[in-house]
């Protein structure tokens, strides 16, 4: 992690203006609103297109479009946290168009739940600002100050959705002492904590239960960047003992500045320097349950964040064999041999991020063991330390595959060990961007490690090539190359393993070997499994694939879900931050001689 510069002058001025609260001499306290007794606007950019889009109706299959529409069957909840001086809030939408009465944006404050639906932006002609909301403040002994937010879409009909541009905050109090929140942060849906800080020096304290044996991965990300945003920079401080972690009292911190290369995809009109780098801290496991305290603190400026505290219950190590060539000096035929080490490292680090992403932060690949020039498996020689290689990097143009995974061993083939299969990958020498190739690795791990089935989409009846522009958009096991290569940002493409509930509810899997988007080719209702119905040539049902989804992952790896078990829409976050996954404390890549 890189360290950074001195605080800007403005930050020092604002810090100096803070009146120390009597209760909180030792720790930074929340700041007051910049302008008392009126609304203060704080940018908070979030957009429904962070969730899966209606892929079948995507405007531009090769890129993000502001006219894309949200997908059906979304149900995602999160929280929005405020400094303790904030007593009223308004959410400001730059766009709000949902299917009226069926798709909803729900906001719960201390007075109840407000349901927003329909068209509230006059079809793009005006912004929509909510009435004043009163953040939940359950217990005066603590500092709970949040709204519960939730977006749901039903089974049919979508729209362009909502986009938040910021919040208006009103401080009814000032100089509130620094206090902790009353509850640990793991029990709300999807684990995401959003929030805004009012300016330099402002701080928000959280705490999370770290379960025995679990690593705890805490992330603080900026909101979605946009053209012309004022730069701001937040930091993360962590301590298992001090309820108020600070720059001077912490066991771990992440104080990265701006201008990181975090973003996997370019954003038109956006300047990289405008956005803070993601801050992240990995807290090592201990043998007992404990509370870990953490603080999000503004180093400079006002702005929004998305924070996650993921209990990581599964830590994995995989072996990687480069098959039949010396990667220290190799190139495809006709090219000059070169050292491919960096390409391999880039791929494995990106795969670490993509795997963490696909499992919604429940599993981490902490170690990769690379073996050079291993014999082909057909020679019946196991080249990775005398064992079969989990990953085989091959040179014969294999886009990606899993041998002896799903289907060859039935449900018993969870993991590599049972059938000694391998993930094959032919995209490791820079012929595909590392982030894209990593999606292929993770897809194959879905087969070889979790025993998941494919969920291809867009196949016409009786097989054949995919029809252009068709994709179902729900999981990384929807594995056609077309989806993997999509360059959307914010990423709204299938990069999670699917939950049971985000399967398309009206379709069923065709099962092994069937070209399917959860549809089985049929001629009548009688030919559809599980009482499904036959629409022309495709079966439809109302249940999920028993060989896919989180339930199946859990069957393969029960300890991975010791703390939480995703039941709604997977979190739409991306975890491709190459700087973080390049940290040798998180991802050990060992090159064997």
């Amino acid at each position: 992690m890189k360290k950074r510069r001195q605080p800007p002058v403005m930050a020092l001025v604002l810090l100096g203006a803070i009146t120390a609260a009597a209760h909180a001499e030792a720790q930074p306290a929340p700041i007051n609103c910049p302008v008392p007794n009126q609304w203060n606007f704080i940018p908070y950019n979030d957009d429904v297109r962070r969730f899966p889009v209606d892929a079948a109706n995507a405007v531009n299959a090769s890129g993000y479009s502001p006219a894309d529409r949200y997908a059906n069957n979304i149900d995602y909840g999160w929280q929005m946290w405020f400094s303790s001086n904030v007593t009223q809030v308004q959410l400001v939408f730059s766009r709000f168009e949902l299917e009226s009465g069926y798709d909803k944006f729900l906001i719960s404050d201390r007075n109840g739940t407000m349901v927003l639906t329909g068209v509230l932006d006059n079809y793009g002609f005006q912004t929509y600002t909510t009435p004043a909301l009163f953040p939940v403040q359950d217990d005066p002994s603590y500092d709970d100050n949040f709204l519960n937010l939730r977006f749901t879409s039903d089974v049919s009909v979508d729209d362009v959705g909502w986009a938040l541009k910021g919040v208006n905050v009103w401080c009814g109090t000032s100089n509130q002492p620094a206090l902790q929140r009353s509850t640990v942060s793991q029990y709300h849906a999807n684990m995401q904590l959003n929030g805004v800080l009012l300016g330099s020096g402002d701080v928000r304290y959280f705490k999370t239960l770290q379960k025995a044996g679990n690593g705890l991965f805490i992330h603080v990300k900026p909101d979605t960047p946009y053209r012309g945003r004022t730069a701001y920079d937040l930091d993360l401080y962590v301590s298992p003992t001090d309820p108020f972690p600070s720059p001077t009292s912490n066991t771990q911190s992440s104080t990265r500045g701006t201008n990181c290369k975090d973003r996997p995809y370019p954003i038109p009109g956006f300047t990289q320097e405008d956005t803070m780098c993601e801050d992240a801290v990995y807290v090592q496991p201990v043998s007992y349950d404990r509370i870990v305290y953490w603080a999000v603190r503004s180093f400079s400026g006002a702005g929004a964040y998305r924070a996650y505290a993921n209990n990581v219950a599964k830590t994995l190590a995989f072996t990687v064999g480069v098959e039949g060539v010396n990667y220290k000096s190799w190139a495809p035929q006709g090219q000059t041999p070169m050292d491919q080490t960096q390409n391999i490292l880039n791929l494995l680090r990106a795969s670490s991020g993509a795997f963490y992403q696909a499992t919604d932060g429940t599993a981490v690949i902490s170690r990769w063991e690379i073996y050079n020039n291993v014999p082909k498996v057909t020679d019946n020689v196991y080249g990775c330390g005398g064992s079969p290689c989990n990953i085989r990097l091959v040179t014969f143009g294999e886009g990606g595959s899993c041998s002896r995974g799903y289907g060859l061993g039935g449900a018993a083939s969870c993991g590599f060990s049972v059938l000694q299969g391998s993930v094959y990958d032919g995209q490791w020498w820079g012929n595909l961007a590392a982030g894209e190739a990593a999606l292929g690795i993770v897809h194959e791990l879905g087969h070889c490690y979790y025993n998941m089935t494919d969920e291809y989409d867009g196949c016409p009846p009786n097989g054949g090539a995919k029809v252009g522009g068709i994709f179902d958009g729900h999981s990384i096991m929807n594995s056609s190359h077309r989806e993997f290569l999509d360059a959307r940002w914010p990423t709204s493409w299938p990069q999670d393993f699917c939950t049971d509930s985000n399967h398309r509810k009206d379709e069923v899997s065709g099962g092994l070997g069937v070209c399917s988007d959860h549809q089985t080719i049929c001629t009548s209702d009688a030919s559809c499994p599980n009482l499904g119905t036959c629409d022309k040539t495709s079966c439809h049902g109302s249940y999920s694939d028993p060989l896919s989804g989180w339930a199946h992952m859990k069957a393969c790896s029960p300890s991975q879900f010791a703390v939480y078990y995703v039941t709604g829409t997977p979190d739409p976050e991306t975890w491709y931050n190459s700087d973080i996954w390049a940290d040798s404390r998180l991802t050990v890549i060992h090159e064997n001689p």
Partner: protein
Amino acid sequence: MKTSLFLASSLVLLMAGCGVTRDEATVSPLVAQPREEALRLESAQLVSKDGAHVRYVTWTFTRRVPRSLMASHVRVLVDGSPVPGELLAEPYADAPTFRYDLKGDVPLTAPITLRFDASVRSTDGQLLEPALLRSGTTSAPFEATLSIADMTGCGAHCWRTGRSPAVTPPSR
């Protein structure tokens, strides 16, 4: 699968239903595309939530129309008779898109007709052009009939998700 209807080249607008072709996905979105000069009906669809009944009808003009005007100048007919329901209370201002929620259980198999008054005007005063209603070349120049004739066999989950396909403007 939503019951997605769009204007066909005859009086009866056939419902593509579950078998909607994917080609429709290539058209531009309703909201984003630039409005044409003339006021015409751009698209219409039936929406079902249970696969058996029509829950609402929605239609989109090429230009904004005052909601207050629309409320008194459109009739929704089933088998030629007005069907109980109400125009959605939103949007509150002028809009290109409207929705009529049907009361009662209108089966998906029933043909539903949108009948517009000849005096429908856009916000900027343009009259609805019957010649631009693809269905409007016969004796009922301001009607669009929506049906689901090809939806047999769809079962209990037959509505298509997604937006209504826009209609290719007819040649003048």
